[in-house]
């Protein structure tokens, strides 16, 4: 076990990146509110707000390039995630979906932005918070729309199923709606960002460590770096995809809660 990490001829062994690498000390001061992830979250709020405030300020019929860029993202969320999935009541949920998408996307992309290089969503607290919001929103919408009794009845006793099957189905359905959905929603996002960052750490720290080794290892190290760069592009794709999936699933849950039958 120990010799496995003894890559350099002499000196210290390689310490593989672990979940401890995600526990960052405060950037300044000495409190829990000045850590890198928290500062990045605030930065994302500022960046997204400023970008969309600037791009929507004029709201011209013939858009400028900036307005067009902002509008493209907005209309993607509005039409592809809102209108096409939720249906005629979609406009109520567009601000929420729009915030969700831009917030998650920006924080994910921080993972590959030079100098920032930390995907905020790899801190599980943030996906938890977002999943709780989505959980509250879609249950609230369902209860408001159908009344609490009918809503719960529809979840527990899916219509058109033979009675004995409910013994199996009811617990499954309840678990799906109240446990599995929020958990998978948050853990999917968290795990993707966590694993992606870890992967980049492995290749880049590994490449660095190899470079400190003997000559043969020095020659290998560029490949590790090259792989790290390739994975960065791959990460970019995953980051966009995860932001999309989170918003898409939220829209689907809302649509399901609005529909008469699940």
């Amino acid at each position, binding site marked *: 076990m120990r010799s496995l990490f003894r890559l350099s001829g002499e000196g210290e062994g390689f310490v593989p990146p*672990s979940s*401890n690498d995600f526990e960052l000390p405060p950037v300044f001061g000495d409190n829990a509110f000045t850590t890198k992830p928290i500062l990045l979250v605030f930065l994302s709020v500022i960046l997204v707000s400023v970008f969309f405030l600037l791009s929507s300020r004029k*709201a011209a019929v013939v858009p400028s390039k900036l307005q067009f860029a902002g509008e493209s993202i907005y209309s993607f969320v509005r039409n592809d995630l809102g209108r096409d999935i939720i249906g005629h009541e979609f406009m109520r949920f567009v*601000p929420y979906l*729009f915030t969700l998408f*831009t917030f998650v996307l920006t924080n994910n992309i921080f993972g590959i932005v030079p100098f920032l290089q930390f995907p905020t969503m790899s801190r599980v607290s943030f996906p938890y*918070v977002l999943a709780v919001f989505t959980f509250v929103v879609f249950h609230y919408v369902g209860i408001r729309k159908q009344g609490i009794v009918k809503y719960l009845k529809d979840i527990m006793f899916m219509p058109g199923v033979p009675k004995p099957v409910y013994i199996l189905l009811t617990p499954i359905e309840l678990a799906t709606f109240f446990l599995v959905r929020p958990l998978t929603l948050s*853990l999917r996002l968290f795990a993707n960002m966590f694993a992606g960052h870890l992967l980049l750490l492995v290749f880049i720290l590994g490449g660095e460590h190899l470079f400190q080794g003997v000559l043969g290892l020095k020659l290998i190290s560029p490949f590790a770096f090259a792989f790290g760069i390739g994975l960065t592009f791959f990460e970019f794709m995953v980051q966009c995809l995860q932001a999309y999936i989170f918003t898409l699933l939220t829209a689907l849950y809302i649509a399901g809660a609005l529909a008469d039958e699940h």
Partner: protein
Amino acid sequence: MENSLYAAAEKVNPLVPHTAELIVGAVAFLLLFLVLRSRVVPMFEKAFTERTAAIQGGMERAEKAQLEAQRALAQYNDQLSTAREEAQKMREDARVQGTAIVEELRVKAQEEAARITAAAHASIESERQQAVTSLRSEVGALAVELASKIVGEALDDQARQSRIVDRFLDDLEKSKK
């Protein structure tokens, strides 16, 4: 060395949330939500609405212009056909009028001719009457003179003379017929 390898045992559980991060995450998200909902979404929606209105307005204007053009075309066609009909009618009228005039003239000419013929006939008749009358008296006188010369006696009795002449002439006419 040993510590770093066994650090796995002390690893933090990445699934346990931090209170500070939970609070910040919620606050930051709600902050962004409020900004986007109150300022950005209404502005983009406004732009979309205005764009839709602009496009629809343009289309409606074009449609209206087309309708106007069609209406004008129909009107011109109408006027053109009316004018054609009028011209046709005028030609027809002129033809009818021409025929009538020719007919009238022809009738007039015939009447004139008939009148002239009748006048000629009348004058010929009267001249013939005159000639007959003068001839009758002259022939009578001549015949009486001739007869008196032949008979040798003067037929002085005027009444008898003319009776004789008339009887003669009547006989003459009767034999001519």
